[in-house]
């Protein structure tokens, strides 16, 4: 009993989490360690893509047309830069919505007098916007993958196809996980409301989401723009 009381006292003294040697919540330390390990995963996938770049024996190719006799019929460069630029913009804006969602949760208890304050303090709106923008990005990716398959590029066609679909597919899977996480937070917000005491949990999701964004920043340049 006394031990339980002491434990509760300790947790209260350390801001609702058990005392740690760093004074930081373990969940936040863990998410940064996880993000560090994810850096290594994505750099290994990007390395593989770059090493195989330009070594495909058959088309379609990313930036160059494939002409007979290499390809049975003439194939145009397969990457669609305008569509990918639009999806990149969507993902960047989702990061803005995410950071506004976190700020709204942190300041939930503060009085809001103007329309602008109420708009910026609406965590449900910004969580919903982030999820919608993330889903839109996934829609762009589904469109891109489908059009590539219709143009004759699958994961088994050539080295470019294998490394491209693996890299962007892994990224898409991460975005999907992020959208599910966001929808979970949105459901909690709708059910009981997210407040400042939940800021850490929203911060963890935000860090993951921004990481997915920075990975795409690298992929967009290295895969799509550099010829």
């Amino acid at each position: 009993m006394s031990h339980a009381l002491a434990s509760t006292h300790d947790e209260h003294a350390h801001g609702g989490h058990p005392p740690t040697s760093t004074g930081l919540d373990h969940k936040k330390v863990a998410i940064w360690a996880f993000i560090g390990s994810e850096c290594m995963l994505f750099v290994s996938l990007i390395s593989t893509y770059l090493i195989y770049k330009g070594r495909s024996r058959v088309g379609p190719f990313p930036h160059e047309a494939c002409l007979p006799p290499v390809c049975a019929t003439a194939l145009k460069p397969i990457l669609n830069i305008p569509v990918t630029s639009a999806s990149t913009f969507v993902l960047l804006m989702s990061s803005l919505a995410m950071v506004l969602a976190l700020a709204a949760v942190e300041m939930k208890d503060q009085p809001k007098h103007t329309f602008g304050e109420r708009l910026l303090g609406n965590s449900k709106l910004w969580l919903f916007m982030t999820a919608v923008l993330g889903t839109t990005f996934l829609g762009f990716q589904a469109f891109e993958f489908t059009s590539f398959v219709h143009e004759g590029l699958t994961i088994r066609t050539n080295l470019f196809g294998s490394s491209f679909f693996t890299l962007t597919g892994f990224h898409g899977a991460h975005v999907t996980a992020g959208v599910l996480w966001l929808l979970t937070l949105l459901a909690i917000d709708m059910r009981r409301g997210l407040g400042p005491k939940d800021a850490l949990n929203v911060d963890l999701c935000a860090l993951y989401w921004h990481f997915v964004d920075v990975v795409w920043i690298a992929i967009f340049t290295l895969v799509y723009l550099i010829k």
Partner: protein
Amino acid sequence: MAHDTHHEAAHVDHAAMGIEKEHPTWSTYWKVAVVLTLVTVVEVWIYYIPSFVASKLFVPSLLIMSAFKFAVVVMFYMHLRYDHKLFRVLFTGPLIIAMTTLVGLMFLFGKLKLGAGAIP
């Protein structure tokens, strides 16, 4: 406007979240978004300039702009500039190892070369 100053909310556990300096205001977040958008526009714009694509500046400028965007998101949106230094170590340590491995692999497979004696 109340949102211009990122007041210390009574129940946000800043210590547990590792917040050492106050996070930026919402107006900073908007400015960062505008900067990121403009840099992306420039990246795509130079992609469509054949003379620039053919020049030696094309790849370095794209890499610099990409690194800039990466750093801005990590510093301002992920708050690494404002949070505990342990988080910086946990992120930059693996990133440095990963980037060193990437560069090593590029040399190993002949994608990067030093001088005339490079691997073909």
